[in-house]
């Protein structure tokens, strides 16, 4: 980049920053972040996008910009790590590389890093941890029991090598809690807390919850627990999307209320007749009296099961068209959203909006 261009970008950055102070708008955050990117100031670009998202969490454009900046950030870190690995390799560097690859969904690359690490450092826990996290990621995404079981085996092997590996203990505790293997979750949380996590308030709360759930009369059949999650398509406890393990049946959590309120606004749009969110896996819920709610729940669950058995992966979206108009369905984690609308409403655009609403509601819960 020439000096003149640098000066021009510098001036434009100053102007946009002034404008943002006076009257912040999502488009200005995006423009500023892109200018930072153009001048290779990736960290400033990321900070701008994050700031914008904290003010406008529902902006699709900002979300996409933040995602692409994050990818650039990670790609640059991966390059740096590879350089360092070729100069002075170590198990810790392999672990860092593997984690970054997992973060960018480069699961094949992460498995390759795990294999290289295992070949170079046999008997170390890092390669097991990387592979375990790949399996865990896949289990969380696809709910295939074999992946979950394999992740558990790898983390168990990692803690046998290094019993003070808190990361593995926590993965195990969450994994077992999510599939309802409470007795195992309790013992792994106890080990986690005794190995340096004693101040972790989330772990302390989890432990209390897990202890309440343990039934001493029932012995845990681990493969069956994982299999049950695969068949039903949802967690026994939704540990992954919240800091506290809220049973998926709860409709009164912040995320669900935030989503309902946003769907209320969506239902005001032209052509939209009704919009409704339903928590899935709500086995303790009273019978659903609303026929539309039953339609969403039953079709989302049947579609999930059918898609899995046809090897199509996890069900994400559905469109039912008829003389009545359209019913659009979106499933994200343990929530299904159904929207009844007129046929002229563009399906893809509305489904994108619904998925963004679910994502921003989840962000509310996490904050």
């Amino acid at each position, binding site marked *: 980049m020439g000096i003149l261009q640098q000066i021009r970008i510098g001036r434009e950055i100053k102007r946009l920053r002034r404008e943002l102070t006076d009257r912040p708008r999502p488009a200005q955050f995006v423009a500023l972040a892109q200018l930072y990117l153009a001048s290779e100031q990736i960290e400033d670009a990321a900070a701008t996008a994050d700031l914008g998202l904290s003010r406008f969490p529902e902006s699709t454009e900002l979300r996409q910009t933040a995602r692409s900046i994050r990818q650039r950030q990670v790609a640059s870190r991966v390059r740096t790590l590879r350089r360092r690995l070729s100069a002075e390799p170590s198990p810790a560097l392999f672990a860092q590389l593997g984690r970054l690859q997992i973060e960018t969904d480069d699961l094949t690359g992460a498995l390759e890093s795990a294999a290289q690490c295992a070949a170079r450092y046999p008997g170390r826990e890092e390669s097991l941890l990387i592979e375990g996290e790949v399996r865990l990621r896949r289990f969380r995404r696809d709910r295939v029991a074999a992946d979950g079981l394999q992740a558990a085996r790898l983390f168990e092997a990692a803690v046998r090598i290094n019993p003070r590996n808190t990361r593995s203990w926590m993965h195990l505790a969450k994994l077992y809690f999510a599939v309802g293997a409470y007795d195992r979750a309790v013992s792994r949380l106890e080990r986690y807390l005794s190995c340096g996590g004693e101040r972790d308030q989330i772990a302390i709360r989890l432990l209390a919850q897990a202890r309440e759930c343990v039934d001493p009369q029932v012995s845990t059949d681990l493969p069956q627990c994982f299999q049950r999650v695969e068949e039903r398509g949802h967690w026994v406890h939704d540990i992954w999307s919240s800091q506290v393990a809220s049973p998926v049946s709860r409709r009164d959590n912040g995320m669900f209320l935030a989503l309902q309120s946003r769907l209320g606004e969506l239902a005001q749009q032209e052509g939209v007749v009704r919009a409704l969110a339903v928590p899935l896996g709500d086995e303790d819920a009273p019978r659903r009296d609303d026929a539309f709610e039953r339609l969403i729940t039953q079709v989302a669950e049947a579609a999930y099961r059918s898609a899995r058995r*046809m090897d*199509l992966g996890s069900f994400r979206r559905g*469109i039912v*068209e008829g003389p009545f108009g359209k019913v659009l369905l979106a499933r994200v984690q343990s929530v299904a959203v159904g929207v009844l609308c007129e046929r002229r409403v563009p399906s893809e655009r509305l489904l994108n909006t619904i998925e963004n609403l679910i994502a921003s509601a989840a962000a509310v819960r996490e904050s």
Partner: protein
Amino acid sequence: MRQILESLNDELGVKGSLVMSPDGVIVTAVLGDTLDEETIAALVSMLLLTLNSGVKENGFRHFNTFVLAANYGKLVVVNLEHSYLVVITDQFIKLDLTRVEIASAAERIRKRGRLNVH
């Protein structure tokens, strides 16, 4: 009918298609090696049972098409009144474009108006 399905399968991204009765009996199927027609028909039949009962319960009478999009593929079911056209595609396909071909195939099958159950 087989020819109609074969020509539909030539579309980019279409992995296979079949025509089945509401209770899962296959009329004609042209599926690739990786897809098992009996399994697909049984699963779609179960799905239709749920879908039809939900649609009727809501007073919607019937549905014309159902699209299921999953991580690794899509499933399109077209209601032919006495039978269903089922199309399986990959995840990349733009349904807006291919649905014209699917609707055209459905119309040609509907015109034939007879079921040859094997």
